[in-house]
């Protein structure tokens, strides 16, 4: 097992402008097999210039790894301007100690990311596999798609300890999302596969869904007017109304299921 510690230097975020650092080059896959000196020389984008990791982060390496699976990256410092953490990773583990910036876990294929704080927009964007655990809140477009795409998350599991903002799982095609708190407007928008469980409240869930399943354990505000009540069902001992939809997509396409208390 190898642990790579990367601590963002405070001067990176102490200027008048808080320019983000994009760290898609710092995944277990890409750092596996590198020495401390080699890791320091890996470049990351800071605004329109490429910088050496060692110039922006304090770097330390402990232990050895036989594969990327055995690499754990621990990120410390003010991570609120660190974008694309774990972008495209397939193996290993990343632990981010604090709030993280946008696109954390985007295009992820495997491995695990734990965010010990909040995650900004597009966490888990177009994720295909692996585990993403966000202890705090998730901002808008969690597990959604890149602009213009018609498929968002297709696999893996995402757990949010707090609340989630708008459009959770937009265009989701597979995988599972669990929100322990509330979800704002349009969770599961355009969903065509996979499963979303919202333990708290939701607003307009399931709009334009054509397949997949959404369960809202709290209260639904602004229920979509284009869903058909199919009856009731018991889930984990609680009674839920079962709806099919969205009929605004035509009856032929309305194969989504929405469970509401």
């Amino acid at each position: 097992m190898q642990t790579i510690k990367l601590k963002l230097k405070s001067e990176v975020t102490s200027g008048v402008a808080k320019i983000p650092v994009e760290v898609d080059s710092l995944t277990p896959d890409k750092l596996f097999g590198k020495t401390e000196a080699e890791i320091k020389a890996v470049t990351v984008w800071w605004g329109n210039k490429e910088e050496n990791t060692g110039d922006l982060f304090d770097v330390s390496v402990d232990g050895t790894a036989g594969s990327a699976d055995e690499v754990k990256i621990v990120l410390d410092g003010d991570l609120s301007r660190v974008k694309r953490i774990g972008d495209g990773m397939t193996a290993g583990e990343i632990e981010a100690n604090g709030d993280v910036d946008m696109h954390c876990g985007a295009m992820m294929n495997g491995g695990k990311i734990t965010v010990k704080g909040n995650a900004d927009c597009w966490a888990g964007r177009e994720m295909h596999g692996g585990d993403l655990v966000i202890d705090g809140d998730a901002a808008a477009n969690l597990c959604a798609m890149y602009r213009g795409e018609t498929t968002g998350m297709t696999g893996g599991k995402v757990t949010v300890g707090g609340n989630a903002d708008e459009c959770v799982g937009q265009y989701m095609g597979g995988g599972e999302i669990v929100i322990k708190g509330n979800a704002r407007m349009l969770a599961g928008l355009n969903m065509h596969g996979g499963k979303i469980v919202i333990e708290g409240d939701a607003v307009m869930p399931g709009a334009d869904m054509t397949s997949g399943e959404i369960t809202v354990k709290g209260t639904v505000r602004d229920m979509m007017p284009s869903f058909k009540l199919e009856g009731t069902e018991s889930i984990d001992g609680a009674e839920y109304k079962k709806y099919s939809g969205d009929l605004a997509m035509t009856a032929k396409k309305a194969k989504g299921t929405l469970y509401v208390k």
Partner: protein
Amino acid sequence: MVEVTDVVCSLCGCVCDDIVVEVEDNKVTKVKRGACSVGKSKLMGHNRIKSPAIRVNGELKDCSYDEAIKKAAEILAASRRPLLYGWSSTVCEADKVGVELAEELGAVIDNTASVCHGPSVLAIQDVGLPSCTLGEVKNRADVIIYWGANPAEAHANHMKRYSYVSKGFWTEEGKKAKKLVVVDVRATKTSKMADVFLQIEQGKDYLVFSALRAILYGHADVVPDEVGGVSKKDLLETAEMMKGAKFGATFFGMGVTHTGARQNNIVNAIQMTRAAHTHTKFTITPMRGHYNVAGINQVCTWETGFPFAVDLTRGYAWYNPGELSATDLLIRQECDAALIIASDPGAHFPGESIKHLAKIPVIQIDPFPNPTTEFADVVFPAAVSGVEAEGNVYRMDNIPIRLRKLIDSEYPEDEAILKRILDEVRAIKEKEGN
């Protein structure tokens, strides 16, 4: 005195092109026909920025164009995350140089669509846009819907030239043979003219679109008795009116792009148009604001593949409104320099964005002083496009129209100023070996 006909108005997205003005001693002395009151005011001219200037110790000091070009290029070349914003109230030729400058700098380029019809542009990418020209609306449409738009006050010539009030080839009886539906959260000058006015609850547009779609697809049975403050009876009546149209045209404005579900409202509005297609011909068009906001979207798309909010920092175009749109970047305090052209974020952006703009070096190019001038560090006066300079613009229905030059100007055109800044930036970079 010379009378000039077929003058094109460079104010709003209607781009009226049948205006008649009088010119005497290199001045527009009278607008005789065709323009609305705001268009008239733009053509007649008003207060101008007099000279290029650089801010020294908090005060703008007049300087030469050469000095201002040098200063602007130094600021931009040294920037790690520059923002180039505006572009909607100038011509496509200037916009093209803007994209080139953004590429050279590794900048984010964004335009006023991001605080205007950006949500519409996003929605169009998702589901397309069954649209038509304003000429088709004039000659064919017999059912007109204005949703979240108040053209009687915001696009004063729109109904008269193109829609409800106009008379065309197959609409020779004018409004007598047309139906007008207005959807808004409050009564307006436009809603007072409507056959049907649906007054919806703030932020509930999305639900109302979905209900109309379900009805148009034959599922009125699942729709509840009231949706978003509108009775089912009124929804059924509106759906019947849509179905009965020979040619329906929906126009939508800021009232629906900037409420509740934003871009998803527009996806839903377009999907409602698609649902209407199972019964009759229907079209949908955004009520674009600035006269060439559609044009910068066109230019930016030709050049980068994307219409607004494009980040060129990593040498390729990365597009993401919400992340790279000007207000979001500024609220997040990401930029360390900005060039603002042909727009006024000082008056239109949220307070937090303006606070950050006030902290970083700002370069302004504009014919007119505005609140942005109050914190700009380098200011360039420019010729007024459509009065003192010609060039191509795109009307709200994406029809290209060439602005005419009416009088000579002592000020350079936007395109010329931008080219000089670009040349100077390239000279600095060459010197530094980049």
